């Protein structure tokens, strides 16, 4: 994964909400995802690799394995949405904290994800953010200054 590289704590502009003052104690991985060609599968690959490096995989229990698979599903949804609704994903950032994985996807659109309500299980469409909501302990949007797009993030707790 040649393009995944660590960031330094002082990379303020790119850090997530609330990290402005707190030191970055957690491992971080950043990957540029320009365009849409193959990026969804690639985002899963990078995430899977991080899950191995950070001890989520190989999983010790079926529950732990399911949580790791949930993370792959969520990253797939976030990157797909950036492609479908925001002209492409820019960057994927992964942050591992004890018992928590934070996934961040940046794009250049100012519009936030708007989960469709009510959710309808029988119809195509509107399942992506519903899945994110169901699988994640929290998720949100950070709007970048000067209209430079946004970051959609989601946090998954470990088993």
């Amino acid at each position, binding site marked *: 994964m040649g393009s995944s590289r660590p960031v330094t704590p002082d990379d303020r502009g790119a850090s997530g909400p609330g990290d402005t003052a707190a030191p970055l104690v957690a491992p971080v991985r950043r990957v540029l995802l320009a365009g849409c060609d193959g990026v969804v*599968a690639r985002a899963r690959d990078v995430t899977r690799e991080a899950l191995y490096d950070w001890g989520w995989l190989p999983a010790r229990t*079926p529950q732990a*394995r399911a949580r790791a698979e949930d993370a792959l599903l969520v990253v797939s*949804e976030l990157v*797909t949405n950036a492609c479908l609704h925001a002209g492409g994903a820019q960057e994927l950032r992964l942050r591992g904290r004890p018992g928590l994985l934070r996934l961040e996807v940046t794009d250049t659109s100012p519009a936030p994800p708007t989960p469709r309500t009510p959710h309808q299980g029988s119809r*195509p469409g509107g399942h992506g953010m*519903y*899945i994110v909501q169901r699988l994640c302990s929290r998720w949100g949007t950070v709007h970048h200054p000067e209209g430079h797009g946004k970051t959609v993030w989601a946090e998954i707790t470990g088993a």
Partner: protein
Amino acid sequence: MDGGVPGTARRGRLRVAVRMHGASAVVTPSGELDHHTADLLREQLEGCVAQGRSRLVVDCSALEFCDSTGLNVFLGARTKAEAAGGGVHLAGMLPPVARVFEITGADAVFTVHRALDEALTE
């Protein structure tokens, strides 16, 4: 391979095999079903319905990943198959794929079978 014609088609990380079994078209996607590969499965499923094969049995036992884009393919095929008097049967889903159907509640609108033979002998 043209949509829904017996044989095997491939796109990136997804392979889709189609064969006929009595009144059913047995569609076997293997690999990863997502934004990059969804069109391939959609073409195959819709191709079957267009050729009068509206009882679609999908053998999911080699499908390793499916997200909401994949789910949309199944939901769209279901509408077309039911409009043609058939339906979509899903067989042998692995845990990560079954999970997507469970949490969205989409499992309620398909006939779900543990294994392929159950879907074919029904």
